[in-house]
């Protein structure tokens, strides 16, 4: 199903079949079956939690190799603002941008520049759509996917604007074509990303037909290749910067909301917190709030699984870097953006539904409840499902059996063995009687 493409894969040879990932997954998408972790594609939202927790490094993020640069005559790097937070003592973004060119890219287009344009577009949208307050940020692809499968009532609250990286890709491609005269296919627009969820966005975008991004590189791959060139770049940095505090601020939590220039917002990060906020929002617990910024990773994009620096250290580094920057350097009146809004409406995908008809579901929910009453409620994970309830749902869906529960299995074995143990007792008693008779 193209609609459920994912950016995480499993190296079966490394997977031990432990229960760490099944326990950590926020949508209960993983099961251990036949000793290996299996992802239910429809449930997965590309958050990267399993990649983070896997001690055996069997869960691997999907992204492109740096070699992809060779496939194009002309390449443009799209550095995510999170990249700037990876370096020690960086005081000038231009050093990183120039180093990217020394490394081999023909040009650089800061995603943070496009982020400033998106901030302007969002400000306008928020002011004009009071009926949808609070409006929820959609730059994080995991958040969009989470709402799509779990929070149907919040779809109308979503900011229907393309994420900065997509706007950056469009602007960069246009600029490259104008500058080089090359056909579009010879130009490689390559995003230097903090997270693999962006690969999913590129391969299977939900609210636009096709992404203009040709490849997604990992910050952790590009980082070591930049260190040498940066020493050279620092001597003569080129003026490639097109963003200021607002744009670069997008790299960590609160940055996007800050760009709206309003105080009426909340910003949450980390899957558990995000889900809590969405649950509360669904129950209409928030009043007088204009905007909700949500990021799947702790700390925001700096916490992505493809970064190298500790997210909180990276956050501190970004803050220092921003101190002497201009507020913003990209503006819509200078750089207009055509059609920045979502082309397609997001469709609710009720993937957690147990069956088709309501009657069938009433039946199934009752079965789940009955099974739950039989299970010990320890949520031990030994069956390969994260909780007893999840196992009960799997059984009702026809994907597991009761004896997958080791506690049920033990009871069952006891029942089978009991006639033999009686026999055993009888035999022992018989022995004792014989002994007595002998005496």
């Amino acid at each position, binding site marked *: 199903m193209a609609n459920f493409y994912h950016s995480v894969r499993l190296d079966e040879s490394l997977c031990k079949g432990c229960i760490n990932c099944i326990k950590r997954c926020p949508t209960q998408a993983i099961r251990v079956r036949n000793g290996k972790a299996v992802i239910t594609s429809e449930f997965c939202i590309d958050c990267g939690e399993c990649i983070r927790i896997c001690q055996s490094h069997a869960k691997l993020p999907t992204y492109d190799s740096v070699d992809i640069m060779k496939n194009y005559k002309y390449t443009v790097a799209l550095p995510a603002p999170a990249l700037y937070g990876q370096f020690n003592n960086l005081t000038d973004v231009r050093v990183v941008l120039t180093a990217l060119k020394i490394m081999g890219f023909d040009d650089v287009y800061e995603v943070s520049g496009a982020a400033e344009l998106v901030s302007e577009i969002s400000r306008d949208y928020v002011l004009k759509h009071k009926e949808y307050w609070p409006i929820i940020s959609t730059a994080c692809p995991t958040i969009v996917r989470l709402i799509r499968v779990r929070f*149907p009532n919040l779809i109308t609250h979503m900011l229907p604007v393309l994420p900065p990286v997509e706007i950056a890709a469009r602007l960069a491609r246009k600029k490259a074509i104008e500058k080089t005269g090359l056909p579009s296919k010879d130009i490689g627009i390559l995003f230097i990303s903090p997270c693999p969820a962006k690969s999913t966005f590129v391969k299977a975008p939900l609210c636009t037909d096709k992404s203009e991004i040709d490849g997604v590189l990992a910050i952790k791959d590009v980082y070591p290749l930049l260190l040498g060139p940066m020493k050279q770049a620092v001597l003569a940095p080129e003026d490639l910067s097109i963003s200021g505090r607002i744009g670069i601020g997008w790299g960590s939590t609160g940055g996007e909301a800050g760009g709206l220039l309003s105080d009426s917002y909340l910003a949450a990060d980390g899957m558990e917190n995000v889900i809590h906020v969405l649950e509360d929002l*669904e129950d209409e617990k928030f009043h007088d709030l204009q905007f909700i910024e949500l990021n799947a990773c702790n700390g925001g994009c700096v916490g992505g699984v493809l970064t190298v620096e500790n997210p909180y250290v990276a956050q501190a580094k970004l803050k220092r870097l921003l101190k002497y920057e201009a507020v913003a350097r990209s503006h819509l009146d200078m750089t207009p953006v055509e059609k920045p809004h979502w082309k397609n409406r997001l469709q609710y995908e009720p993937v957690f539904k147990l069956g088709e008809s*309501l*009657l069938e*579901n009433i039946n199934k929910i009752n079965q789940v409840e009955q099974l739950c009453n039989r299970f010990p409620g320890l949520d031990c994970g030994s069956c390969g499902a994260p909780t007893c309830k999840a196992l009960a749902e799997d059984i009702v869906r026809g994907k597991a059996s009761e004896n997958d529960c080791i506690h049920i299995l033990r009871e069952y074995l006891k029942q089978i063995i009991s006639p033999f143990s009686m026999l055993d007792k009888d035999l022992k008693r018989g022995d004792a009687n014989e002994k007595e008779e002998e005496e």
Partner: protein
Amino acid sequence: MSEQTGTSGVELKYMVSPDDFTRAGEASSKVKNILKQMGISPDVIRKVSIAMYEGEINMVIHAHGGDITVTITPEEIRMVLRDDGPGIPDVEKAMKAGYSTAPEQVRALGFGAGMGLPNMQNYTDEMKVETEIGVGTTITMSVHIEG
């Protein structure tokens, strides 16, 4: 939570613990997730979860907890919220939007907006309040499932 099996319905029971704000909303959240698993339309889920959450909070604040029984049938979702609290002296007044027994200072903090019962009524298709001073209150609400 306990359950009874009917041929055409699901019955869910929840205890609402007294004076514990950290747990208020637990029952409505569980019901919400079950309704999503049942493929109930988002609009119905929204009505049920908001009405039930309001009721649950009221039980924590005013009535020292109680119990909630939710019955889901192909026709409707019925919620019965029962408590042994102080009872509601004037139901008609309490049902009026903006009516609140909370003192002015408390209302200034955003509590007691007087929208609890009115909201519950707005979000449900039927609502019945049975109350007796010093004995308790039972609120029965139902949201119809269309089509």
